[in-house]
């Protein structure tokens, strides 16, 4: 019966694995309600890799914790829904949610050094997480070894008997990925999986993720503040600032034609972009606004170099500018009208 009800309420089934609509989350703090996420909407298509970029404190982690429903106790959902395969995760009972975690949605955390239990062997941990399957222990072990081989750990059978401390950081992160992918989930959430690693290992992990995504056919939500990694790995990118999605689109659109001044500034700040040696790197002056006491109007206006009167009074709505590329900025409305008129003219002349 509940299934019937849901199909009535929902519109036609989409091609997206994950659809987040108008999600707002507050944290109760002694100073008042901290509005960590405000009207966040985003989606992840089947077999797509979507990256989220943003400075620390922009709400990336809150968003992930809401998806897997592991929110802090002082968090409250103000509005919105998180549709995973057309099922609202926010309405699920804890028991139903637990059945999803690790099977349909799994996660790789930031710090590979603290992901594993230090007193159990890797093999034991990899067998334990298959507790839902009715395979024999030997078969589970075989499967674990197969996953280790898949992420490029040499000599996997012997390695199963080793403890986490006997592996290097890069290997531990690959084991974490192997464990997350063991049940062939539909969605893998990777929270800054390479920040704790060196450049050469970062490349290894990214390559491995790409290959596995190909093989298993899952979607990946990849969180990072390393713009280079996002550019290389992801199909689409979501830019967040102070709890809002301010720009979203294909990696190529966003990185080549950033429409929001914040995205443009962020890209300019990346020293990877600057080829000549300089002792004065670009920065974004100012601070992220206080999320307990939000300014009116655009969330970025205090740091924006292109702001005008309207930005202080009116919050810009998120709107598509072309195809899948969307942005929340008043500037683009005027720019857009110019551009479309230009395009029309061109269309007429050609």
């Amino acid at each position, binding site marked *: 019966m509940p299934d019937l009800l849901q199909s009535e309420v929902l519109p036609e089934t989409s091609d997206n694995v994950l659809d987040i609509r108008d999600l707002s989350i507050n944290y109760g703090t002694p100073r008042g309600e901290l509005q960590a996420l405000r009207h966040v909407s985003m989606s992840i298509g089947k077999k797509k890799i979507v990256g989220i970029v943003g*400075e*620390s*404190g922009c709400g990336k982690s809150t968003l992930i914790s809401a998806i897997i429903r592991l929110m802090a106790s002082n968090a409250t959902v103000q509005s919105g829904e998180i549709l995973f395969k057309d099922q609202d995760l926010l309405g699920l009972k804890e028991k139903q949610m637990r059945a999803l975690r690790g099977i349909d949605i799994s996660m790789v955390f930031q710090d590979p050094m603290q992901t594993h239990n230090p007193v159990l062997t890797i093999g034991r941990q990899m067998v334990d997480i298959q507790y839902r399957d009715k395979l024999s222990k030997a078969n589970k072990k075989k499967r674990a070894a197969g996953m280790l081989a898949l992420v490029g750990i*040499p000599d996997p059978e012997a390695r199963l008997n080793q403890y986490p401390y006997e592996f*290097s*950081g*890069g*290997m531990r992160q690959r084991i974490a990925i192997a464990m997350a992918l063991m049940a062939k989930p539909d969605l893998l959430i990777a929270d800054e999986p390479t*920040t704790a*690693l*060196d*450049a*050469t*290992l*970062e*490349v*290894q992990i*990214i*390559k491995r993720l790409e290959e596995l995504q190909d093989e298993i056919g899952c979607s990946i939500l990849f969180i990072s*503040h*390393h*713009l*280079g*990694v*996002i*550019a*290389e790995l992801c199909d689409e990118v979501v830019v967040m600032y102070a709890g809002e999605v301010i720009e979203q689109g294909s*990696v*190529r659109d966003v*990185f*080549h034609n950033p429409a929001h001044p914040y995205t443009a*500034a*962020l*890209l300019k*700040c*990346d*020293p*990877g*972009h*600057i080829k000549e*040696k*300089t*002792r*004065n*790197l*670009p*920065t*974004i002056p100012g601070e992220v606004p206080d999320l307990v006491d939000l300014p009116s109007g655009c969330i970025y206006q205090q740091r924006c170099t292109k702001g005008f009167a309207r930005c202080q009074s009116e919050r810009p709505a998120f709107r598509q500018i072309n195809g899948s590329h969307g942005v929340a900025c008043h500037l683009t409305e005027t720019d857009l009208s110019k551009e479309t008129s230009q395009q029309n003219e061109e269309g007429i002349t050609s």
Partner: protein
Amino acid sequence: MNALLEIEDVFVSFGVRGKGLTGKRGSIDAVSGVSLNIEQGKTYGIVGESGSGKTTLAQAVTGLHHASEGSIRYRGQELRDLPEAKFRPLRSEIVMMFQDPIGSLSPRLTIRSLITEPFRIQGMKDRDLDAEASRLLKMVGLPQEFANRYPYQISGGQARRVGVARALALEPKLLIADEPTAGLDVSVQGEMLNLLARLQDELGLAIMIITHNLNVVRHITDTVGIMYLGKLVEEGPTEEVFANPQHPYTLALLAANPEPDPDAKLMRIELKGEPPSILQRPSGCEFHNRCPFVQANCHQDVPQWSNSELGGAHRCHYPQIWKNNQVV
């Protein structure tokens, strides 16, 4: 020839024990024969994977680890085997900024106490500590009211600034910064590096910066040294190393630096396998089992530290081999 800091053939060893209670005792060289010079007012960058001995080297210079061999001279004075009592006054001249910004600040002290702690440790009781605190906060661009805050009340970027203020409280000559930008957002990272550059100009500091972020090294350093398994494998003027890497490991590091451009043409060199354990150092060239261009004699012959024509030096039998063979 009068470098501020001269490190000559330094080894740092740690005792280890084999498996089980009766395992044999042995030792590993975390730093295995490193020589480098840092001149006044210049910045030296040390790059390498985790476990390559970067931090251990820095700690040997500050006397936090004992160097088992070699010589570490600061203004001509030998630091190795210097008793702690004699080292302490030097710590106002050679200071270290630690990796974890919040973790390195005591959670129970206010920012004021934290940044004036160096004066108390060095017995400078005559100073007006409130005035010093206010001067230091101004220097690193933090608001004055931060003096009364506790570390949990500030952000990671601000904690770094407190770290800088504390390190520079006593106007040191040499600053050792261990991963000063790890975990920071790009814009905050820029602020941090600009701050270090400005303070270097104002105070004539020499900086030894340890990082695995090549983008950082490229902008802030004059000289860069690449470490692998506790040894330098390449060293040279920063621009030269970036333009003309000699050692395959340097090339791989440079190639592994993803560009923030989805259409960037990437020259990717994936290193085979894992960094070897320093418990069992590979024979010959220690990079041979991961080197994409390995040749027959690399397995046995140890490459010597040799100078290249362009002002750098490297440890490789076949520098720039990828150019000759056009493997790339």
